Each structure stands twice: as C-alpha cells, then as structure tokens.
C-alpha cells in the first residue's frame, strides 16, 4: 500500500504530473474575484469564506481525472485490479494521494488567499480547520466520479457535472463553518456535520468507487 502511495505521489509531483495546477487555479480565482467584485474590504471580507471554499472545490476538481485516467490508459489499473491488494484499498490510496497533492496544499495556501480577500482575523483558524476536515471528502467523492468516467473519451466535462452536485453538502457546511467563525458565532454544529460527511464518505465511498471501477474494467 505504501509503495502504491509513494508511486502515485512521485507521479503527481514530477514533471507532467500537473501538481500545482490546482494551486495556481486557486490563486488566480482569489485574484479574479476582487477584480470582478471590486476592492471594497467590507464586501470582500463578507464573501471571502464562500469564495475560498468554492475555489478549493474547483481547484480540487481540476486534477480529478488524473486519479485513474493515466493508469487506465497504460494498463496499470488492470494490474492493480488483479493484485492481491483489494481494489477498495487501491481507490482509498489513490484518493489519499490526490488529497496530499491537492487538498493539503490548498489548505496550506488558503490563509494567504484569505489575506488577499480580507478574511476576518477570527476566521483563519476555522478556515484551515474546515478545509482540513472537508478536503478529504472532496478527494474521495472525486475519486468516485473519476472511477465512473474512467473509460470515457470526453470524461472531463462529464466528471465535473457528476461530481459538483455531490460536493454541495460539503460546501454548505464548510463555508458555514468559516462564515460563522468570521461572525464570532458557535461553529460546533456545522463542524460536526462536516466531519460526519467526511467520515461517512471516506468509510463508504471507496466501496462504490471500487464497484464502479470493476464494471469499467470488465
């Protein structure tokens, strides 16, 4: 399992792996929004939680099709499917690798972008915490979407159409944590619900993804 994780990380980090694309996209979004909305700190700080969460969501989406597509094309996915390691574990590892290369950097970058968007000082902790809790769900749900569309030629657009609706609960609770934190309200409920969604998705969705992969590899 760790060998697979290290292999996936290496592939993602080395040239042509697309690492950093998502991050750059996140940055560009945080630059474009003030240009579109106007530079008033009041407006920006009010919409900052939502923008940052939506940005994280879209940045995550960018690299989803890489989770399985390359391995599917060169046949290593067939190899992994017939390996003694259960396919559910393969899916989980690949989602984890996606999170380490996309979700985690997003979490680390988000405070800087919060600065650009005048995020209120009280909200930084909640921003990092909510993204830390929420982005694993984004990767796991995304892996399910990637597994669904792995055999398709024009899978990319379809992937976003399939995955974005599934991201809605995570987005709602994640952004709610940050905006409540910014207003100094209690964040316990949305935080618990966000963690619940992530826990449920991480525990159950790999089974659905593995099932779907088996169908696609048939």
């Amino acid at each position: 399992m760790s060998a697979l994780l290290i292999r996936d990380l290496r592939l993602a980090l080395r040239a042509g792996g697309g690492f950093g694309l998502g991050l750059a996209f996140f940055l560009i979004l945080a630059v474009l929004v003030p240009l579109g909305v106007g530079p008033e700190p009041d407006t920006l700080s009010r919409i900052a939680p939502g923008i940052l969460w939506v940005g994280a969501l879209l940045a995550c989406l960018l690299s989803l099709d890489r989770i399985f597509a390359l391995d599917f094309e060169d046949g290593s996915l067939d190899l992994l499917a017939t390996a003694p390691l259960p396919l559910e574990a393969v899916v989980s590892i690949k989602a984890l690798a996606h999170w380490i290369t996309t979700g985690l950097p997003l979490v680390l970058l988000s405070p800087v972008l919060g600065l650009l968007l005048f995020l209120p000082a009280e909200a930084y902790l909640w921003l990092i915490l909510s993204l830390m809790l929420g982005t694993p769900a984004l990767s796991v749900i995304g892996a399910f979407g990637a597994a669904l569309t792995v055999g398709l030629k024009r899978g990319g657009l379809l992937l976003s159409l399939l995955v974005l609706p599934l991201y809605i609960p995570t987005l709602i609770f994640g952004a709610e944590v940050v905006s409540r934190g910014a207003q100094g309200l209690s964040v316990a409920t949305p935080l618990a619900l966000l963690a619940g969604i992530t826990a449920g998705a991480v525990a159950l969705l790999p089974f659905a993804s593995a099932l779907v992969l088996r169908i696609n590899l048939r």
Partner: protein
Amino acid sequence: MASFWEYANPLKFMRTTDWLLPVVAMAALVVTAIGLIWGFFLTPDDFRQGATVKIVFLHVPAAMMAINAWAMMLVASLFWLIRRHHVSALAAKAAAPVGLVMTLIGLITGAVWGQPMWGTWWAWDPRLTSFLILFLFYLGYIALWAAIEDPDTGADLTAVLCLVGTVFAVLSRYAALFWNQGLHQGASLSVAPGTRMDWAYKAPLYVSMTGFGLIFVALVLAGTRTEIRARRMKALVARERMA
C-alpha cells in the same frame, strides 16, 4: 397478472404494454384534463391570491412527480443491480428525462407563482434550492447515460450513480435547510401544500396529482418500449454484420 420478475423478459413486457400503454395514456389524458379544467375554471379565486392560486394544480403535481420519479429510478436501479432485471434498468433510463421535465415544470411554475406572491422569481429558500439541486442530479444522471456506449455498463454505472446520488441529494436537502436557517433565522416563504386548504381546492388537486402520476407511468412505459426497440434494432444490425 404475471409476477413482476417475468417482465425482465422484454418480449413479455412488450406484449403486456401493447395494451397497457394505450389504456394508461388515455386514463392519464382524461384524468389530467378533468383535474386541470376543474382546477382552473371551476374553483373559486382565493381571497388573497386571486386567480394565481390556480398554479397550484400544475405546480404541486409536477413537484411531487419530480421527487417520485427519482424514487422510482432508485428502486429500478436496485432491481437492476440486485436481480439483473433488464427492463427495470431501461425504465430507470426512461424515467430520468420525465423527472427532469417535471422538476423544470415545478421550478418554472413556482417562479411564475412567486413573482406576484412573493415579489420575486427566485428565492434561495431551502425548498427551492433543493429542487434546483435535484435538477442538477437529473442532468448528471442523464449525461452519464448518454456518454456510455455499452448498454450494460451504462446501466451498471448509472445505477450506482443513482444510489450514491440519492444519499447526497438527501444530504443536500438537509444541508440546504440548515444553510438557509443560518441566514434567515427561520423566516420561511414556503407554503405547506395540503394544509389549511379547502376541499374545493383539494379535490381537483388530488385529481390532477393522479393525472400527473398516470402521465409519468405512460411516458415511462413508452420510453422503455422505445429503448427495447432501439436495442433490438442494434442487435439485428449486429447480426446482419456477423452474417
């Protein structure tokens, strides 16, 4: 009537629906016509809403069928996944566009109704929001069906998507409820259908709900028959090529 499982045989299904479809279609036409004419012309105007209240006879049945169509797709997907009921998979495929249109009718009539009553075409009310989300789920489901060439793979993948999508659609429903309360502190625009409604409205409403249900059944049967024929055609073409 034969057992439900025998209708996994397309031939059997076609033979039964040969006579069943016209009957259901006629019944749908008649019942919907009665419900709508009764509702539109033979009910009194509401003392506050005036004639606009009559949109309810389109709005509520469409909204109801939008949700029921998804529920039917869920059940049909389960039948396909568990028992490999071929016709069931095709019925789920046929139901999706109907559900999509029902959702759209619900949204549009809601907007037309909301404009004079609430003064706005759209509000980010939890009910409205979850309906828009349901619309997105339908779009994704239909797009996935359209993208996959092999019919059995398509049936499998869309069935799994339907199951997972159901969980997330329900989650989104409650998330939207939570999200809106977070913004508006319980100020709600939504009207609870059926409550405090006089029988003068309720009776035609129930009739047109039945009518919409029958329309749905008729359209799904027709769609399933089309799918079966399309598949048979494909099989014939393939056989020609082999020979």
